[in-house]
């Protein structure tokens, strides 16, 4: 039997082979082979790398979604909190503007003494146009006192309890206010209706009334002080057969958006009913 070659011989052969391969490689003899092998290797690595990244994303994305959802919920909560703050601030701004306008109005009309009140409700019956305010007898409010805003006439106090009062609006179907048309210099009667619209009646046929004419309280009858702004004439109905002209009115006050009103507390209505002659003998 042949003896296997010794270790030193094997090492020498291996070194010679490697050296030869390196010499051939450095000499450029392995270029085409290394290109093919390198390309295959790069392709294989790219394939593995792509799959690995895909698997890694697959395993890690759910965790990201959860964290994103949590972050999203936090942001949403923050947004809703900020929106609430914005609404509160807007309400405060609106209230401040209303109060500033009311203060300006009271300063511009120093002949009257005012008591500010917040509207806390409306009449529970749809037939009536009343509001409920948060000041009452304890605040010096009495029945019959006129109620205004900085824009104009609202109505008058109809009933009072200790800490609240009910105000009959000029739009109420039972309301009747003596008014004066400034341009035509004539008196008329302002009437409410079940729909909340107001109209003018008892306008003399002799006068000329134009749309846009300003209407103020006349003070006749003692129910309201004179010269409170009420509204403007929208259109006029004049028929020869009628005793009086009629007109529809656009009130200056938006009765659907009443929030804060002023009660004129130094006005005492005059009860003229004893002076009205009775129909019965």
């Amino acid at each position, binding site marked *: 039997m042949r003896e296997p070659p010794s270790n030193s011989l094997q090492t020498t052969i291996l070194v010679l082979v490697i050296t030869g391969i390196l010499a051939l490689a450095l000499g450029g003899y392995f270029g085409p082979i290394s290109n093919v092998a390198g390309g295959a290797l790069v392709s294989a690595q790219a394939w593995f790398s792509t799959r690995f990244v895909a698997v890694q994303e697959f395993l890690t994305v759910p965790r990201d979604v959860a964290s994103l959802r949590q972050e999203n919920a936090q942001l949403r909560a923050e947004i809703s909190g900020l929106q609430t703050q914005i609404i509160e601030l807007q309400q405060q701004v609106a209230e401040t503007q209303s109060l500033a306008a009311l203060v300006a109005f009271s300063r511009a009309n120093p002949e009257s003494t005012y008591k500010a009140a917040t509207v806390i409700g409306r*009449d529970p019956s749809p037939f*009536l146009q009343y509001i409920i305010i948060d000041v009452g007898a304890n605040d010096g409010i009495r029945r019959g006192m006129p109620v205004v805003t900085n824009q104009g006439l609202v109505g008058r106090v109809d009933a009072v309890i200790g800490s609240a009062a009910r105000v009959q609006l000029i739009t109420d179907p039972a309301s009747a206010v003596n008014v004066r048309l400034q341009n035509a210099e004539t008196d008329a009667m302002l009437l409410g209706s079940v729909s909340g619209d107001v109209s003018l009646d008892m306008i003399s046929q002799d006068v000329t009334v134009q749309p846009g004419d300003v209407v103020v309280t006349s003070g006749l009858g003692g129910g309201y002080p004179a010269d409170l702004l009420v509204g403007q004439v929208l259109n006029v109905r004049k028929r020869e057969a009628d005793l009086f002209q009629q007109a529809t009115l656009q009130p200056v006050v938006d009765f659907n958006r009443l929030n804060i009103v002023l009660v004129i507390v130094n006005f005492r209505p005059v009860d003229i009913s004893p002076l009205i002659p009775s129909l019965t003998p």
Partner: protein
Amino acid sequence: MKNLVAFPILLLVLVLQSAVASRLTLLSGFADLLLLFLAGLSLHKNAHMAWHWGIIGGLGMGFISGAPLWSILAGYLGVVGLARLVQRRVWESPLLAMFLVTFAGTLLVHGSTFIGLWLSGTAMPVEATFSLVTLPSLFINMILAVPAYTLVRDLANWLFYVERMI
């Protein structure tokens, strides 16, 4: 003793009526929460005390409203009476009974209030009043009839529960 709860509950209903429902208008009409509450309550088979609730609610509503007290009280007591009557007749279909009481009760309360205002000197055209106030109110009340009945039924079950000896 359970009937003492009528005061806070009816107070809450009246506050909601005056502060919220009265501002949510359709034309000139709006929901009548007291009517819906009394109708739902009175349709319970054991609601013999519903008359008391009707009186308390009617008085409260009359106190807040500018309409004559007697007309409002009569209207709501009419609703309770109608509901008790209907409950005996169509007790097997409570929702139908609720619709019936809401429909007829709205007309009853509005008719009563209209007559009261007319007698006190407030002139209102019938046709305009019906189309601008009553019809929209009727529509809203009919829409709210089912949710109101559902809410009030649980309260009525608790209030008018009767133990029977076997």
